[in-house]
């Protein structure tokens, strides 16, 4: 095991993928000599050459569209979209081509492509640099969509995504790039949990928090805070956003009977809706209180000085936990936690 930041774990996964299979290519803006604006591809062009780590022209449809052609020729392109907010020019290529070519060709064509997207907010960035577009992709049949929340998962899941013959949209929570964790660089992929499974990040009995990406850490913090109050929270890291491991989610909800679903993306028609709907359908008779969603508001991402009022934080999670636990008048947990002052105020 090695202690690595999530960024370094991703770099390691990319290097390993490039080394293991010479059909793997990296493509994107500034990923070569610069090593990417987050330095995630640092050193890779030097090591693998400009034919395999390709600085592309500044055009996202072009990047994804040419990657489609490379995949048709037998390559396995890993595409970097520089920031979440810049994926939309490539939306047509992703939705109509990448997602559908296997189906359109009756299974004859495969699209083993990974689309890496530094993702979501909370880093004080400029407009268009803090988007959470995951629901768009999860609603698109033919894509797999995943989000890592630990360096170990980032390393393993990225390698699994590269190995998959399906296209995978790979979300990298940018506010975790510098967070550290132990990574087993030599682990056999075959021993790792499959890409589509959720992970019980913490076991608990009173209520379940289902989330993914950077909010997994916030949820674990919430569980710690709640523990002081004698409340036992289970935290589920969804990991795969399409398909979703609803079996793991439902098992937890059957146990706790109470659930909070959290994400940064806007609430309306976000993934939280799917999770709540699926839970309701599967666990109707086990639910003891209506599920709660803690999400970004139905607004464009606000200016960064105000982002803390948009991105769910510890207090908002605890507030919702209070609600599903039917504790009187909200704020019972959140106003008592030592971190409350960092939160909404």
């Amino acid at each position, binding site marked *: 095991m090695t202690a690595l930041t999530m960024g370094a774990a991703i770099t390691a996964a990319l290097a390993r993928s490039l080394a293991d299979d010479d059909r793997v290519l990296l493509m994107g803006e500034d990923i070569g000599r610069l090593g990417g604006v987050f330095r995630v591809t640092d050193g890779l062009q030097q090591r693998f050459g400009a034919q395999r780590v390709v600085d592309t022209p500044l055009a996202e449809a*072009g990047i994804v569209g*040419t990657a489609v*052609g490379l995949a048709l020729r037998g390559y396995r392109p890993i595409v970097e979209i520089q920031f979440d907010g810049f994926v939309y020019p490539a939306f047509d290529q992703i939705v109509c081509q990448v997602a559908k070519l296997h189906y359109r060709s009756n299974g004859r064509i495969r699209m083993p492509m990974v689309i890496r997207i530094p993702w979501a907010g909370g880093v004080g960035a400029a407009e268009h640099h803090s988007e959470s577009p995951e629901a768009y992709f999860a609603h698109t049949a033919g894509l797999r969509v995943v989000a890592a929340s630990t360096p170990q998962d980032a390393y393993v899941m990225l390698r699994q995504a590269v190995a998959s013959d399906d296209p995978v949209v790979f979300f990298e929570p940018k506010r975790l790039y510098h967070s550290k964790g132990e990574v087993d660089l030599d682990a056999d992929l075959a021993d790792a949990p499959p890409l589509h499974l959720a992970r019980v990040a913490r076991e608990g009995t009173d209520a379940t928090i289902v989330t993914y990406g950077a909010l997994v850490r916030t949820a674990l913090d919430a569980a710690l805070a709640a523990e002081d109050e004698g409340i036992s929270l289970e935290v589920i890291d969804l990991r795969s956003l399409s398909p979703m491991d609803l079996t793991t989610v439902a098992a937890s909800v059957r146990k706790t009977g109470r659930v909070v679903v959290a994400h940064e993306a806007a609430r309306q028609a976000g993934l939280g809706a799917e999770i709540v709907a699926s839970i309701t359908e599967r666990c109707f008779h086990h639910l003891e209180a209506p599920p709660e969603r803690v999400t970004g508001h139905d607004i464009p991402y606000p200016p960064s000085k105000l982002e803390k009022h948009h991105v769910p934080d510890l207090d908002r999670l605890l507030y919702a936990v209070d609600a599903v636990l039917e504790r009187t008048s909200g704020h019972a947990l959140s106003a008592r936690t030592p971190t409350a002052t960092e939160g909404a105020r």
Partner: protein
Amino acid sequence: MTYTQTQPDHGPAAPGTPADAPRASVGDVDDVVRVLEPDGTRVPDAVLDPWIADLSPHELRALHRDMVLTRRLDAEGVALQRQGQLALWAPCRGQEAVQIGTAHALAAGDFVFPSYREHGVLLARGARPEGYVLAWRGEEHSAYDHTTINAAPPQIIIGAQTLHATGWAMGAQRDGSDDVAVAYFGDGATSQGDVNEAMVFASTFRAPVVFVCSNNQWAISEPVTVQTKYPIAGRAPGFGIPSLRIDGNDVLACVAAMRWALDRARRGEGPSFLEAVTYRMGPHTTSDDPTRYRTSEEVDSWAQRDPIARFEAYLCAEGVLDDSALAEVAAAADTLAAEVRAACIGATTRAPETVFDHVYAEPHAALAQQKADYAQYLAGFATEDAR
């Protein structure tokens, strides 16, 4: 360097007509390179001639034959649609020369990225009869086997395939092969961002890709003047891509220009661009009514430039074709049409649950469950009926 000219200096003057006074073409349709006049007279062209000097009578007859077959296939597509056997068909009548000429110039390892109208290209690549019709019938999204004919599924999203071709070419380049990718698209497609981005990528990476724009003067009801005020072939040089504006109804010019472009690509000189000036003789699709937007005079004038009549006149004059050869080709065309008709009419619709197949290449439990649920749902009717 200055580009002060109010009209660019590397082509005919862009017509100054306002957008709401469309013309049928941008640039004179005769301002092209060609080796066959509309009446079939062979004329010299210094650029093209070297590329076709070696064409044997056998090869000439093959070109002719595939053009005739394409026209017959196309007529069958229209007929099948009229008879309710196909939901739709996009006729290619009038565009046989550019489709067959460019496709005949290819090597087996080259890969084509066609639009929905390139029936002739797919024919020249050796498609099976069912390939042409099953998608238009609604049985499959694409019934071509791309691996045997080295052709991508025909593209409906205008222009998207130009990027795929460019990417494929980047792959061929990395493989050290001399395979070339070919992107086929229309005049309307040149307005799409994707097509322009494809030129950017192709130029930057010197990708071995040939852009073949069939300028058939119309994008559904919009004349080419809505897409551009400057000849389409004049666009590519500004991306660093050399281009030729060819007579798209002259099959020999199409072969020659394509060989020129393929040769550049194989020699590592990167992309080329061909604007084939041609005409869509039929409606946009069988759903379209072109009398709403264009005159019969215009259509008639293009009938005078017919690619097959022109080539036949030339070949007969040269003694390469005679009546018995023509009859043989006609019979082959009828055979093809009959095969296509049989493949169409004989088609059976897949089982309902197959709609769930091939969404993913890897196992997908959730979708497998949806499939099982749906099968059970369908089975329920049978049970109910049986009661």
